[in-house]
């Protein structure tokens, strides 16, 4: 059996399908709780804070900061080898939730903790567009 040629692709589930659809339209969605106002990511059935099922979708403003990061010097699979060295980070969104991402659009060595970043969308195939983050020009520190 040959090694997989494509990068790992997410498989949307019934509760995340709408979120992935919006990524295709270059919109990063979060869930906001109608009862307590909590923002959450990833999409869930009920509020992580108060268990209310009154969740609404809101578009994130797309800004965040790098909470922590690493520079991968070894690829997880052959399909990632051309990207070396690539940055994997946890990004803290302005609204509060954290998400994993790559930091793209800059030298890997230039990434720092606390760096302001903004969302950008990367098309992986016709179904999957992945949110990624790049340095935010004129970003106001942490």
């Amino acid at each position, binding site marked *: *059996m040959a*090694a*997989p040629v494509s*990068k*790992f*692709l*997410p*498989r*949307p*589930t019934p509760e*995340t399908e709408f979120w992935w659809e919006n990524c295709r339209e270059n919109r990063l969605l979060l869930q906001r709780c109608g009862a307590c106002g909590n923002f959450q*990511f*990833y999409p869930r059935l009920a509020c992580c804070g108060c268990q209310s099922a009154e969740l609404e979708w809101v578009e994130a403003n797309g800004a965040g900061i790098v*909470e*922590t*990061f*690493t*520079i*991968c*010097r*070894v*690829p*997880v*699979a052959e399909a*990632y080898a051309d*990207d070396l060295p*690539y940055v*994997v*980070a*946890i990004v803290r969104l302005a609204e509060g939730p*954290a*998400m*994993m*991402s*790559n930091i793209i659009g800059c030298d890997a060595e230039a990434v720092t*903790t606390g760096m302001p970043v903004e969302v950008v969308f990367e098309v*992986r195939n016709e179904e*999957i567009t*992945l949110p990624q983050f790049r340095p935010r020009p004129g970003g106001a520190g942490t």
Partner: protein
Amino acid sequence: MASLRGQVAIVGAADTAVGKVPQMGATALCAEAARLALDDAGISKDQIDGLVTCNSMAEPYMYHAEALAEYLQIFPRYCVSANAGGGTTFSGIRQAAAAIVTGACTTVLVALADTLRTGLSREQAMKMQSSTGHPQFETPYGATVPAYYALIARAHMDRYGTTPEQLASVAVNGRRHAAMNPAAQMRDPITVEDVLNSRMIADPLHLLDCSLVSDGGAAIVLTAADRAADFRQDPIYILGAGEGHSHEHISQARSLTTSAAADAGREAYEMAGLGPQDIDLVELYDCFTPVVLIELEDLGFCGKGEGGAFVESGATALEGSLPMNTHGGLLSHCHPGNPGALFLLTEAVMQLRRQAGARQVPDASVALVHGQGGIMSSHATLILGRERD
């Protein structure tokens, strides 16, 4: 509330050969670990009425414990495949101890093995790497397992000023002890410089900050403390046990630098009626060097953020105030994946029996072992003693 304190004893413990063991598949290696532990306990397989295993990556079964019972032709009343990564071992043992205390069974064999070094196909290795992250929200970004842990290392460095040299000192500590352990996979001494000069895998983690990839198996026999005198070896008692579970995927962690080891440790200390100052030696899950610093802090052996300085000071050396990973740990003894933590326990048992040879901690009476699985996700602590009370 009923307590497990002093109710259950470890009466058999053994490791298989580790490193490269190409002559055995993962199921056979698990059976070999079982055979050795039963021999050590001086009992036959027919005296076992409980079985705990974990699944193997190399030779997975849908229901692993049932498959191993069939392989061994034993017919247990209690049969569980535990599954929480490196936290599996002590979590499974705690549950088995509870099963003994409540009468669900009397004597439990815990046998874990895998052959990550020689037994994995390319597809299985790939699956293992990719199955670590959240399938939708992490895996697509291409992190390796070391990269997930590097996120923690970076956070600890940023928050507390931990240095790469301090991370490296964890690996050096393990290797010094492995040099005294003929069974260890890697025994050549290393220095902090060697760690820092080894290949960068995922900044700030170098190759020697990462644990080994091994074949290996280990097993223990647990029984009710009241029956323990009937066995060949000195019984080693479970004095405390605790668990904590904070997340599965690191991007969802409540904290990157404080773990649920704090919860697991608190519960274990309370049950044992002991504190960090009463512990003679520790065997801590060391899949990557930063993990050990956080465990030392969260288990109360040093202040928060001081783990790096603590290890760098030599406190965790065999002759230090808190000998740690006296067999070499996952970094230098072996790491066959899910079974990895059981070697921490078999080493603690050998130390408390005073059978650890050149690496014996003098007068070792109370030991703490800690396992974690996922990416600092699932934590389980056991406190063990030579004396029941």
